[in-house]
């Protein structure tokens, strides 16, 4: 049984429109997206801006309600849950946001930010909760003597650790990490990534890792799906995708990543967006490797 299964997920947005305005344009942000995440996976969802990767992540947690399709968590459809059931389900499914500056309430102390999920879910006595917050602070490598500080008193990397501590408060099994390090300096990035990997091993976490940095995804994810204009165009084992990209968009994307070797031959491939065919079905192009070609 996979931990999470996304089946034919669709989310369209209407852009523009309104009184006397031209008819709205339909943006197919997520357009018939399906994938499976196994227990323990570090599943990378990559794409450029507007590819629909973040909307997909949000639909899974129902922070955005999908138009159609299904999301199964441990074989149970979360889309049919009532608000109450969904709240319970979120104990197991959490999210870490991209921007540690806007995702933490600047007027709450770090301790209250991390404690809030425990209060919302009515867990433990105040003393037990304080104990748990302290434990979480240590777990993510923060100094418990800083519990009383406000977000502005922490650096970007430390704030992201607070965001991670908050996500871990309810002991989730699955975490959507939406560009968790892209706002951070590269040396800080490495530290936060190390933390996420360490937590995965220690707590048996499964991640949906949403990112645009292909070098990072190649390094940490075991499976990858590549999104383009709301569609998954290619999916499979990380090694296979990076060494044998099958979809022309994946090839263009990989060829655009700057190499760290000044003498590496430049073999940039362009992808002609006008040739993109949305309706091509995925087929197996290698072992555990599918592409819409």
């Amino acid at each position: 049984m996979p931990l999470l299964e996304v089946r034919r997920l669709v989310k369209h947005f209407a852009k523009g429109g309104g009184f006397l305005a031209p008819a709205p344009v339909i943006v197919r942000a997520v357009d018939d997206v399906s994938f499976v995440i196994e227990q323990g996976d570090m599943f990378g969802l990559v794409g450029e801006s507007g590819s629909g990767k973040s909307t997909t992540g949000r639909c899974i947690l129902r922070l955005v309600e999908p138009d159609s399709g299904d999301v199964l968590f441990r074989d149970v459809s979360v889309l049919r849950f009532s608000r109450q059931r969904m709240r319970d389900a979120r104990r197991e499914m959490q999210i870490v946001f991209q921007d540690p500056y806007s995702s933490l309430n600047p007027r709450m102390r770090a301790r209250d930010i991390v404690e809030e999920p425990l209060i919302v879910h009515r867990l433990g006595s105040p003393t037990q909760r304080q104990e748990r917050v302290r434990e979480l602070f240590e777990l993510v490598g923060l100094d418990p003597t800083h519990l009383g500080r406000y977000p502005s008193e922490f650096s970007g990397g430390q704030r992201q650790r607070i965001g991670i501590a908050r996500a871990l408060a309810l002991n989730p099994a699955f975490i959507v990490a939406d560009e968790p390090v892209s706002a951070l300096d590269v040396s800080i990035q490495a530290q936060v990534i190390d933390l996420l990997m360490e937590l995965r091993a220690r707590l048996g976490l499964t991640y949906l890792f949403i990112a645009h940095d292909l070098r990072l995804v190649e390094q940490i994810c075991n499976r990858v799906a590549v999104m383009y204009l709301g569609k998954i165009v290619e999916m499979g084992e990380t090694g296979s995708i990076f060494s044998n990209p099958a979809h022309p968009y994946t090839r263009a994307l990989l060829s655009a990543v700057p190499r760290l070797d000044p003498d590496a031959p430049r073999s940039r491939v362009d992808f002609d967006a006008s040739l993109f065919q949305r309706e091509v079905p995925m087929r197996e192009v290698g072992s555990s490797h599918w592409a819409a070609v």
Partner: protein
Amino acid sequence: MTLLDVQQLTVTFELRGGALTVVDDLNLSIGAGETVGLVGESGSGKSVTALAILRLLQPPARVRGGRIVFEGRDLMTLSEPEMRSVRGGRISLIFQEPMAALNPTMRVGDQIAEGLTAHGVDRGEARRRVIELLDAVRIADATARARDYPHQLSGGMRQRVMIAIALACHPRLVIADEPTTALDVTIQAQVLEMLRELKDRFNLALLLITHDFGVIAEMADRVAVMRAGKLVEQGPVRQILREPSHDYTRRLLNAVPGMSRR
């Protein structure tokens, strides 16, 4: 031949609690037609250095010492009108966020022309040059695009417009401050390729400020690594990437994902 020679540049922020040194005794030179990458993390002082070269620093920032010799003249000693003809004329600047740097209420063609007329080109000639420049930065259908406002263009196109503005008056040196950081990777690749071509075509020197060693590897001849206001290391790009001598450079390189494998 040395085009720009920054000597012992020191910049401080004058704060109530005292002066904070943000650029500390920095020496950096750029030859004609050369691309120098200035790398560092946030707060290392790389953007302040760029602004100091153009004398665009605002209080509380203050240049406390040093010389900025460009084409044989110390920019620090120039009068403000003289400096204005250097800015945009001999040295121009490309910013990270084209949407913040462009005027949202002005057609992009007019924004490119503005730089030209400010440097004494007449209007008719400026109009002609605008189309030429938009062609040079490979914006298709230049005449129509010149009439667009910034919000009508994609991020990559806006950055091309910024580059067209920077090139308008045939500068010798372009300072590009994180020019592709806000762009998607495929667009970044196109913009970098274009910058390389334009640099050769117009024989420009480029001071490329970035935090991305991948961009450095693709673009730079030489690299200078900054940390906390100090230059920790500089040298030819291959030497810095392959055999960094400073521990901080090594750590920075090791933090780049995929460095070990590619």
